[in-house]
């Protein structure tokens, strides 16, 4: 091979690839809004993204599969956990992961920041990325199913969607703060007290480790009925 041939190989290789790459980049920008639903990026999504950066979440958690591998991927976290659970975890990781072998730091995320984060993660979840990560597809499917049949929502779905980040119900949810079957047996609250407890645990049981929950009064009422019915169910069985 002569020096000239070598030089030609260099320029041909470099320029052809650069042209293809720049063209594909142009096309990416043309098509990307459709895949990433950019019309849904509002101020709250942007505010949530800034929170994501501010606390450097990405050096522990991957998102779209990029970043640190120390903690679960956040691409489809919204479907996996739901709004209230994300807020609880992000604001009180020291409680949620009290017994976990790996800790998430208490970062001092405020309520407003946590809400924006959820909106950001919800938008991220809608990016059409060819169904990655594979292990979260089941959560996405289940979420879509529930969304499509909102009126027929199972009570278990509601309660686990709101409280499953810390509590369990038989095989569902996380076993961090007790199973609702056991809790139902233990507590002596009436419905109103329980609703009050959900919104402001300290006012009912001072010193409790449970943080206030971010659920609407209607949802709190449904959840309370459900928990209290567990109690009745157990007594009848006996």
């Amino acid at each position: 091979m002569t020096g000239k041939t070598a030089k030609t190989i260099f320029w041909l290789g470099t320029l052809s690839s650069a042209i293809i790459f720049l063209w594909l980049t142009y096309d990416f920008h043309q098509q990307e809004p459709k895949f990433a639903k950019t019309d849904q990026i509002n101020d709250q999504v942007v505010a949530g993204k800034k929170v994501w950066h501010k606390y450097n979440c990405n050096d522990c958690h991957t998102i779209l599969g990029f970043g640190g591998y120390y903690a679960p991927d956040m691409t489809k976290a919204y479907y996996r956990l739901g709004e209230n659970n994300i807020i609880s975890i992000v604001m009180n990781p020291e409680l949620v992961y009290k017994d976990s072998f790996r800790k998430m730091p208490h970062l001092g995320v405020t309520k407003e920041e946590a809400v924006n984060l959820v909106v950001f993660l919800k938008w991220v979840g809608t990016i059409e990325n060819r169904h990655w990560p594979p292990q979260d597809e089941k959560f996405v499917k289940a979420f879509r199913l529930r969304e499509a049949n909102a009126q027929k929502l199972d009570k278990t779905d509601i309660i686990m969607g709101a409280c499953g980040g810390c509590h369990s119900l038989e095989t569902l949810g996380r076993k961090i703060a007790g199973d609702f079957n056991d809790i139902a047996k233990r507590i002596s609250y009436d419905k109103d007290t329980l609703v009050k407890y959900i919104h402001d645990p300290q006012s009912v049981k001072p010193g409790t480790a449970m943080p206030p929950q971010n659920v609407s009064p209607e949802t709190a009422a449904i959840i309370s009925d459900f928990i209290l019915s567990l109690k009745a169910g157990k007594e009848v069985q006996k």
Partner: protein
Amino acid sequence: MIRYESQKVARYYLGLALILFCLQVAMGLWLAINYAFTLPQGLVDVFSFATARAIHTNTLVAWMLLGFMGGSYFILPIECKRELFSVKIAYLQLLIFAGTAVTAVIGFLFGWTQGKPLLEIPVPLDFLIVVAALLFVANVAMTIILAKERSIIQWMLLAGVTFLAVLYLFGMPFFKDLNVDYYYWWWVIHLWVEGAWELFTAAIAAFIIIEVTGVERKVVEKWLYVETGLFLFTGLVGTGHHYYWIGSPDYWLWWGGIFSALEPLPVALMVLDTWMHIRERKNPIVNPLLWTYIMGLALFHFLGAGVFGFIHTLPPVNYYTHGSQITVSHGHLAFFGAYALLNLVVFYFAMPQLKGIEKFDDRLGVWGFWTMVTAMIFIGLIFGVAGVLQTYLERILDLGYRTAQMNMMFWFRAVLFFGAIFLSGVLMTVYHLFTLKKAAD
């Protein structure tokens, strides 16, 4: 024994690079401890994994860039047959760069961050880095322009550092759209390690091979053209292997898959040409350790980037391995094999000359080399095993992240063990380089 007075600036660059190398690896060991044991919440709250990871990766990039810059300043006068354009600029640039790096690390400890993996340095500090980079590129360019003789290596070096500096800009803006954010994040990360840095590596390796083996320049430069041409041909469109699982058109699976699958080709050529040139050497082997490093660079570059990159680059494989410890395995083997070893080649080439030693006592350095290389192979393999396990548990058996991690614990502890051995190899090497002595004969 240096041929030009201005080569001396390299000494401070290399010294600082070696210190940051130690800090980087020590921080890596701390990350492994985070994986292998449960740390108290109070500690995690003040010094988290995220902060430690930012320090680990930024000191990595910083010491490598310092090595590249110092290496360029050492090599340019020889290649251009004249003094550097300006020694003052070289010192000023070092001051800005080092000052920024130190400020950044301290800032991380207090939570001052841009919050993007690998590019955590906040924007105001980014501007200082850009200033330092501009000074560097200008200094290199002027030295080359004022040279009496032109060479391919000169302008390949200039192209590499200019490309490198330009790409850094794409990591600086705030993007509202995470999808676009990561599109351009890879312009920095991928186009650096599989583009600009490869150009630079190929040019430096070519220069050192000519110097050390005495092989005819024309032959080496021909290889250089072909290799860099192939690097850029495969590497530019090959960026697509990072766009499989973002919101992007389906054609990226094809473009990214095919072009990146060809990326090992130029790396394989580098093994071939290094081996041939060493075999056809015209010069006697004065310092065997330097030759060991040169051959080690070629082989480990191929192992880490070529083999371990290829393994997970095709979309059907990457769907399962993406975002797992498999990536970590490749990242470590590739960075060490290509860029840590390249820097060490430069250090072992330059340091003896800076100290006026022709043949140095290499006993400790040999220990350092083999300790690092052996430990890193284990580290890469163990992360690989952990990654396969993770993929299987999480994505085939569907066990959930936390259960999978608990079942990988043995491997995290094994990495910690080999990480400690690796650190000891680093300390031996760094100590050896700092205290280089004449060989007793």
